[in-house]
């Protein structure tokens, strides 16, 4: 049973990382991110209202305690979030650079036209 959760967490982590990397910000990719975020929020509310439930789920999955399960889920979610953010930031920087380059070239070409 221990092995099951280990495999599951590693698989989910890999899927999230690959999805974050390959996803070209399509509509469906953005929609899935929102769904995942909502699910995480709902899970958090449930966990707060019924603290014993995390233990039950954890035991069913073969994790010792509910707190451990939460830690795993949050770690995976955080890595996915951080990578996604980094890639988005890089895309934005690239776009900004192209815009700035266009401005620089237009200005320089106009200056040397005479």
């Amino acid at each position, binding site marked *: 049973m221990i092995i099951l959760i280990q495999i599951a967490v590693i698989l989910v982590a890999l899927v999230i990382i690959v999805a974050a*990397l*390959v996803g070209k910000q399509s509509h469906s990719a953005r929609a899935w991110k929102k769904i995942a975020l909502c699910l995480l929020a709902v899970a958090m509310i449930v966990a707060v209202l019924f603290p014993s439930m995390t233990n039950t789920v954890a035991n069913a999955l073969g994790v010792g305690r509910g707190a451990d399960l939460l830690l795993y889920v949050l770690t995976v979610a955080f890595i996915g979030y951080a990578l996604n953010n980094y*890639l988005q930031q*890089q895309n934005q*920087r*690239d776009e*900004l*650079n192209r815009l*700035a*380059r266009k*401005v*620089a*070239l237009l*200005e*320089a*070409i106009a200056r*040397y036209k005479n």
Partner: protein
Amino acid sequence: MITKDVAIIIPVYNEAEVVAAVIKRVLKHYKYVVCVNDGSKDTSSEEIQKTKAYLVEHPINMGQGAALQTGIEFARTLPVKYFVTFDADGQHRLEDAEKMVSILRKGNQDIIMGSRFLGTAPGIKASKVVVLKLAIKFSNFTSGLKLTDTHNGLRAFNRKVAEGMQITLPDMAHASEILEIIAQKKYRYKEIPVTIEYTDYSKGKGQSIINAVNIGFDTLLRKFIR
């Protein structure tokens, strides 16, 4: 003799101390010098304007790779056949650039790159050699090319390469990216020995070793996304 079919592209970032002298030296031999001031915080822009070089001003600091791309795009509008990238701190020798262009003129190569490990680099720090050797292994691995020096700012290429060049990685990671572009587009490339003159000034401006982590991460990430 002033060469009129070559554009020398010089990315400039905070080089006010030396840039004017370097440009004047280049202008003695080449008609077209394109300087890209990458949002310098010092008086680099004024120093460049004192010379007859073309000046393209980045409105913000965008990194050396981005500055090279801007310089190449501006130089494309000039009536030149060949393009040379040259560092602003004066560590490259014009004789080497001349040699590269003369190889291009024969028409058997598309891009010529300088190698300090085929040539000499007097005054190079031992720590820099170690980092560079690792960088070379890494870049050869990601691009699939076989080179002896992958992070040399001195390069010469023809118009076909200039039109096809699209550098997107803004910082030092552009060195690996250029090699990937060469491999992808199957440009004919050659390395020739060059001499790099490390002065106290250029030594003080080198890349920090820890920055290699950033470059490696970004390059691998890109590779993975593609």
